[in-house]
Structure formats: structure tokens, C-alpha cells
């Protein structure tokens, strides 16, 4: 197990290097001129001399590989430069907004899992009967509705018509419900479908038949054997949902005026504030990679077939 974890950690290094290279290349090959944005946002008229000075200052006139290594070296020391707009260190600003986003994403993930589990199980146990039909109908609806429309639909129903929940800003739990619902409905539905499919597959498996043949009650067969095995693939799906949740967070933060890193990044993109943009994508990707690594390790730990394979290879 330890070997497996170490191996995965070692693989992280080349992947993150490649990620940084892709981000750097997109930044430099894009048609935008960082020096121009820098001058515009600093309020300096972009004369030829000013541009030349800014390029030297930002190191844009050196060869690309040198720029990359320099940039990478700074990033490794957690120096992502200063925002063109506020002149503050970018990382500081991102870390200021990030906890708000993580709280929202964490709550959404909780909502996804807490709701999809009973829905998926009921749907599988009541296959083809009314509860199953309802759950399948809901999940079909859920995977087809875009989050940015869903957000307004929720605002319209729960804030405007029923006046139950606030539609803007950050506060207690009540402020979190609508944005989290906006972010999680799709992964919730995908997850419910996944649990249903796994349950159905396992219910008809040989080990379930064997458990029944041993005279175990159906409740024990389902609860102890089928359910446990059906949840293992859900662990992997969680890693996938995190990526969707990060994307959904940007949209939900924009709709519900949630002061998170997504909203901050969108305004940075409007301003072409390059240091903020690159720090944002690197941090979000790093979080995504680390989450997926955690998920894989958890998966390996849960599933002896992988755990043992890791040790022998």
C-alpha cells in the first residue's frame, strides 16, 4: 500500500510539470500581449517606449525556454507575481477567496453523496416500479438542465415566489443551499444512476446468490454485501465530480454573488490580469489532481484487488 502511494506521488511530478508547460504555452502563444494589459491596467499610456520598458520588466523579451524556467522556478517558490490590478501578491489574493469556494464545493459534494445514495438504492430495489421511474425521471431531468439556468430557476422558485431562501451573498447555511444545489444536481443525478446500475449488477452476481443460498436474509445480503460493493465505483466517480464542481462553482458564484475564487477569476479574465489567471488555473488543477490522488488511494485501499496488485508489481 505504501509502495502504491509513493509510486502515485512520484508520478505526480512529471504530470504537474507538463501541466505547467501547457499553461505557460497557452499564455505565451495566445494573441494577448501581457505588456499591453499591464500598461492598460496600470493606467500608463501604451507608447512604444513604455511597452519596451514593460516587456523588459516582465521579462517578455527573453527566449521562451528561459522565460518558462524562470516562471517555473518562481512558481515552485510559490511566487506567482503580483496582480496587475491590485498590485498585491496573486497567491495571497487567491488564498483569500479560495476557502469560500472550498466550503461551497465541499457542501455540494456532501449534498451529492447524501442525496444520490438513498435515491440510487431505492431505485435499484424498486426496479421498474414507481419510485424507480421517479428517480430515473429526475436524473434524466437533472443531467439535461444547464447549471446556469437551474440557478435562476431555484432563485425564482425559492427566493422570489416562496421567499424561503436568500438569493445573494454569503451568510449562514441558508445562503449555501441554493448555490450548492445548483452545483450538485448534475453530479447527484449521475451518481444516483451509477449506484443504481452497480446495485442491479451486484444483486444478480454469484456472490449475492451464494449469500442467499447460505440462508442470509435479503436485508443482510443487500446491506452488507451488495451495497458495500456497489459503492466502490462511486469513490472513483467522486474524483470526476470534483472537476465538474469546480466548473459549477464559477457559475454558481457568479449567479449568487458568492465571494469565491471563481468569481474573482472571472473578473481577472475580464481585466486580462494574467498573473491571476495563471495562478488560478494552476491552483485549481493542483487541487483537482490532489483530490483525484486521494480518491485513487482510497479506492486502492477499499479494493484489495488493486491494493495487492500494487504490491506485487
Amino acid at each position, binding site marked *: 500500500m505504501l509502495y502504491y502511494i509513493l509510486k502515485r506521488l512520484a508520478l505526480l511530478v512529471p*504530470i504537474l510539470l*507538463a*501541466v505547467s508547460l*501547457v*499553461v505557460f504555452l*497557452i*499564455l505565451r502563444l*495566445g*494573441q*494577448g500581449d501581457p505588456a499591453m494589459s499591464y500598461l492598460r491596467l496600470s493606467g500608463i499610456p501604451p507608447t512604444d517606449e513604455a511597452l519596451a520598458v514593460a516587456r523588459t520588466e516582465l521579462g517578455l523579451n527573453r527566449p521562451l525556454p528561459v522565460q518558462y524556467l524562470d516562471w517555473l522556478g518562481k512558481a515552485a517558490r510559490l511566487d506567482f507575481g503580483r496582480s496587475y490590478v491590485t498590485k498585491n501578491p496573486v497567491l495571497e489574493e487567491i488564498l483569500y477567496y479560495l476557502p469560500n469556494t472550498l466550503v461551497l464545493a465541499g457542501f455540494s459534494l456532501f449534498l451529492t453523496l447524501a442525496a444520490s445514495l438513498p435515491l440510487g438504492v431505492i431505485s435499484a430495489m424498486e426496479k*421498474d416500479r414507481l419510485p424507480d421511474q421517479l428517480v430515473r425521471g429526475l436524473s*434524466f*431531468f437533472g*443531467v*439535461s*438542465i*444547464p*447549471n*446556469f*439556468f437551474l440557478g*435562476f*430557476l431555484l*432563485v*425564482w422558485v425559492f427566493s*422570489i415566489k416562496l421567499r424561503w431562501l436568500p438569493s445573494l451573498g454569503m451568510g449562514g447555511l441558508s445562503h449555501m443551499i441554493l448555490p450548492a444545489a445548483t452545483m450538485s444536481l448534475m453530479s447527484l443525478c449521475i451518481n444516483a444512476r451509477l449506484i443504481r446500475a452497480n446495485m442491479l449488477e451486484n444483486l444478480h452476481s454469484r456472490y449475492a446468490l451464494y449469500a442467499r443460498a447460505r440462508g442470509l436474509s435479503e436485508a443482510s445480503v443487500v446491506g452488507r454485501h451488495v451495497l458495500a460493493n456497489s459503492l466502490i465505483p462511486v469513490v472513483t466517480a467522486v474524483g470526476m465530480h*470534483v*472537476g*465538474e464542481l*469546480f*466548473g*459549477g462553482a*464559477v*457559475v454558481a458564484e*457568479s*449567479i449568487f454573488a458568492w465571494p469565491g475564487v471563481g468569481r474573482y*477569476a*472571472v473578473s*481577472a*479574465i*475580464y481585466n*486580462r490580469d*494574467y498573473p491571476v*489567471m495563471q495562478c*488560478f*488555473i494552476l491552483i*485549481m*488543477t493542483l487541487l*483537482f*489532481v490532489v483530490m483525484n490522488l486521494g480518491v485513487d488511494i482510497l479506492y486502492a485501499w477499499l479494493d484489495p484487488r488493486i491494493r495487492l496488485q500494487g504490491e506485487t508489481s
Partner: protein
Amino acid sequence: MMLENMARRGLVVFACLVILVLGLSAAAAPLIAPHSPDEVDLSQKFAPASLEHPLGCDHLGRDVLSRLLYGARVSMGSVAAIAGFILVLGFAVGVTAGFLGGKVDSALMRVCDVFLTFPTFILAMFMVGVLGTGIVNVILAVSLTHWAWYARIIRSLALSLKNREYVLAARVSGSGRMKTAWLHILPPIFAQLVILATLDIGHMMMHVSGLSFLGLGVAPPTPEWGVMISDARQFVWTHPELIMYPGLMIFITVMAFNLLGDAMRDALDPALQEAAH
């Protein structure tokens, strides 16, 4: 069971009709739209539904129905371009990796790994942020963030088909490498690919409109459904219908493609299930 089958068949027919109607209205928007989508008439600001304006007008007095019809053009057009781009790139990379194997295979798959490392929507946002807004850049960003997943699946399909008995039988009976690939391996891969793409079209459409909604996609005067929702967001308290119309259009379109994709997958199930896991 029979009732359900009939209901499902009905839904698939419905989905095909929806897609057909949307495609036609996208193609014929200039002919059937009652007004120009950009025609501003402030005297008609928030005009209710009438014969003149069947779905009313928005905050600039633009005809909502016309904007929805032209919006179908942008949505259907961009998604078609993205799907085409991804199919070509994913097919080329996946088939090359699957057939050649060895170093080429591992190099190509490492490139895919890198692209799969990013959270998709965040990477698309970043690309549009750097490249600038506009329909072409949105198409590019969404394609570049999605192709790797296709390349992966196509590679595993190619690998699993390469050593199937019927393919070996064709080789043994004297069919050359290229001919075998062309006649026996590529067609089934391509069929699976079309199903995958159909299932994924809703997702692509949501990304395009989602970017536009954030102001990072198609630039505002263009009638696009995501842009229309974004334009109407400040009027959610007074004129929620301006959000409902484009929202429902996206919802119905995505649903239609999902229904169609599900039906196609069910019809051609087995190989895909194996390859995807």
C-alpha cells in the same frame, strides 16, 4: 415492458423531431424569424407577447422569438463544429496510438493524460481568457478540453478490436493491414464514436452556453442562448420569462440529444460498455 418500450420509442421519435425542428430553424432563421434579432426598439421594451412579437421583447425591445431562432444557429453550429473537431482529432490520435502501439502510443497517451489532468470547464475558461472571447475561440477551447477523453476511448476500442477473432480471420485469409483496418476495424470504431459524441453533445452545448453566460464566450450582441440568460439576469425579479425561454431551449435541446444518444447506445451496446471501463 411493452408499454415502456413503446413509451421509450415515442420519446426517441420526439427527440429526433426536436433536433430536426431545431436544425431547420437554425438553417432557416432569416426566413422564419419575424424580426431581425438585433433590431433595438426601446418603445417595445419588455413588450408582452403579442401577434407582432409572439414571445414579447427583451430589455432593449428586441424580439425574443427571433433571438431564440438565431440562437439555435449559434448553438447548433458551434456544437457541430466542436463535435467535428473532436471526432477528427480524437479519431486520429486514438487510432494511431491503438494501431502503432509502442513508443508512439505511450507518448500520445501521456499527452492525453496531461489534458485530462485539468478540470475541463476551468481550462476552457482559461483558454478563452487568454485567446479572447468570440465564437471561434470558444469552439477551440471546448474542443481542446474534450478531445483527450475521446482519444483514450478510441484507443482502447482499437486495441480491443485489433485482436478479435474476426479481424485475425481476415488477416489470415490474406487481407492486408490497411485493408483490414479500413474494412473491419474503423467502421465499428466510428459507429461507437458517433454514439459517444451524441451522448456528449448536451455537455458541449452547456459548456458553450455556460462560457457565454459568464461573458467569456460569444460576445453579447450575438443572439446566443447563454448570452440571453446573462442579459436577462438582472431582470429575474420582474421579467423571469426572459430567462425561462432561452433556458428551456437549452434544456430541451440537451434533453433531445441525451435521449437520442441513450437510444443509440442501447441499440449498439456491448463493445462500448467494455471499452469505457
